[in-house]
């Protein structure tokens, strides 16, 4: 098989990238999706709160996805579902597998990586104790309840206060389960305030900050967990340990971009984001290979996923239409400083158009001052009352700032103090 642009993953990122590439003039596209239907993780996110930025209204996940799917169908862009992509080669050959074709290859001029992310599994968290059943990631529980129609347990403890855990605390409570507590290792929650109010306080579910699950108990099935307070160094204070009987422990401890395919293709990754390192057009270090959505960096709002995917899709189309021309002659690296943990993009290849930088801080910054420096020279600055690790921030660099940076030829440093 041959195609101009192969898009891997038909979640909101892949769908928006396909529409943008089509509208930019490339009509020969192919979406490859391992699930039975397009829509990605949104299919199981039945709660509302999606689309406020993009549509000015609060949609549920399935409604948001349905709009993107409709746009793709309108353009007759083919989606191969139940098709697992096995590998991507640096020459942009995609190897995939499905029931009709067995193992087959797709030769593409450009590739858009849109595989999303997965949840940090329990093994990575090293909780001591037994290994009973009844321990799931919050997203797995969400799939059980919302897609398969089964409640994974009745007496619940949740570790981690990420948004998915908070959403599931409410969902399971509404379905008749009893959520004993949400334990958060850090002194602040990783979730949005509105979710803490609407999902925990509304139902009197305690949020235990600076707490962790210190041990799991049970033989066969989970029978309970020990929870304990932690000190400033996040070490358990043994004297605070107490036992909570429960049959289910949900883990909501963060998301990891799913980059096995990218690694196989030799795409260099950013060690902080876990996603590819890209330029302002979302092109990785391999020419013609683009990335967007949660596979690039974890987003909290799908609206920004769609925006980024639009950019990646359009860039892929331009690359194909301009004859798949090589690489930028000069590029300026963008570095994170102070409280800034990472930036996307990680490099800028052209000073001609404005570039919106996305970044996250590693700890809460009150009365934050953001500066953009080229070497020692401050090129731009901005103040904000508060920045938190839970919210992605952004800042637009004007062509004037970019030209100054290119003239100086030094890396740009984005920092918050």
């Amino acid at each position: 098989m041959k195609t101009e642009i192969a898009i891997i993953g038909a979640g909101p990122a892949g769908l928006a990238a396909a529409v943008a590439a089509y509208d930019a003039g490339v009509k020969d596209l192919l979406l490859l999706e391992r699930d039975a239907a397009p829509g990605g993780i949104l299919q199981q996110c039945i709660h509302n709160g999606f689309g406020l930025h993009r549509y000015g209204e609060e949609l549920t996940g399935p409604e948001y996805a349905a709009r993107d799917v409709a746009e793709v169908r309108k353009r007759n862009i083919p989606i191969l579902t139940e098709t697992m992509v096995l590998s991507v080669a640096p020459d942009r050959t995609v190897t995939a597998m499905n029931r009709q074709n067995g193992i087959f290859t797709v030769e593409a001029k450009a590739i858009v990586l849109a595989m999303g992310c997965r949840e940090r599994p329990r093994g990575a968290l090293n909780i001591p104790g037994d290994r009973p059943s009844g321990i799931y990631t919050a997203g797995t529980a969400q799939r059980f309840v919302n897609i398969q129609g089964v409640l994974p347990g009745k007496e619940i403890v949740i570790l981690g206060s990420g948004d998915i855990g908070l959403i599931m605390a409410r969902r399971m409570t509404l379905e008749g389960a009893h959520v004993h507590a949400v334990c958060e290792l850090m002194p602040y929650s990783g979730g949005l305030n509105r979710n803490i109010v609407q999902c925990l306080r509304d139902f009197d579910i305690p949020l235990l900050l600076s707490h962790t699950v210190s041990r799991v108990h049970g033989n066969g099935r989970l029978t309970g967990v020990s929870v304990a307070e932690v000190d400033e160094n996040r070490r358990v204070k043994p004297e605070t340990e107490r036992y909570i009987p429960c049959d289910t422990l949900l883990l909501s401890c963060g998301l990891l971009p799913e980059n096995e395919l990218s690694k196989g293709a030799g795409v260099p990754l950013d060690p902080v984001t876990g996603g590819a390192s890209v330029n302002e057009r979302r092109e990785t270090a391999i020419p013609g290979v683009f990335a967007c959505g949660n596979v690039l960096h974890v987003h909290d709002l799908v609206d920004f996923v769609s925006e980024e995917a639009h950019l990646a899709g359009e860039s892929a189309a331009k690359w194909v239409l301009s004859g798949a021309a090589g690489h930028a002659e000069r590029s300026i690296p963008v570095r994170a400083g102070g409280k800034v943990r990472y930036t996307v993009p990680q490099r800028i290849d052209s000073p001609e158009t404005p570039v919106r930088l996305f970044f996250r801080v590693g700890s809460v910054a009150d009365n934050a001052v953001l500066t953009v420096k080229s070497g020692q020279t401050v090129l731009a600055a901005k103040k904000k009352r508060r920045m938190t690790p839970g919210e992605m921030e952004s800042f637009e660099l004007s062509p004037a700032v970019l030209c100054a940076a290119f003239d100086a030829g030094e890396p740009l440093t984005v920092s918050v103090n």
Partner: protein
Amino acid sequence: MKTRELTCIVCPMGCTLRVELTDEGEVAAVTGNTCPRGAAYAKDEVLHPVRTLTTTVRAAGTDRPLPVKTDRPIPKEHLFDAMKRVNSLQVEAPVRIGDVLLDDLFGAKLVATADLL
């Protein structure tokens, strides 16, 4: 006089609001808000808190439930009663996204948020 503490959920600042209530249950004062939107939220929240309900209903002939929502927020105190009514419902294909499944669920319509074909 009673006071209640709330977290404003209108914007990411998440200000802590204090609402003073008269003995008749009316709002006498709101403090702690950084902007007027916080005061408006506090008044609504203490007088008649409402929430949009999103959940699923059973669908005939399949294990996969159909996602649904109320088309407007309903009084918070009726969430569990609303769940009971929704969970006693069973729908049959075809249902289109936006179809009304219940006309009056505590003042809101229950609508499908996905297709069931």
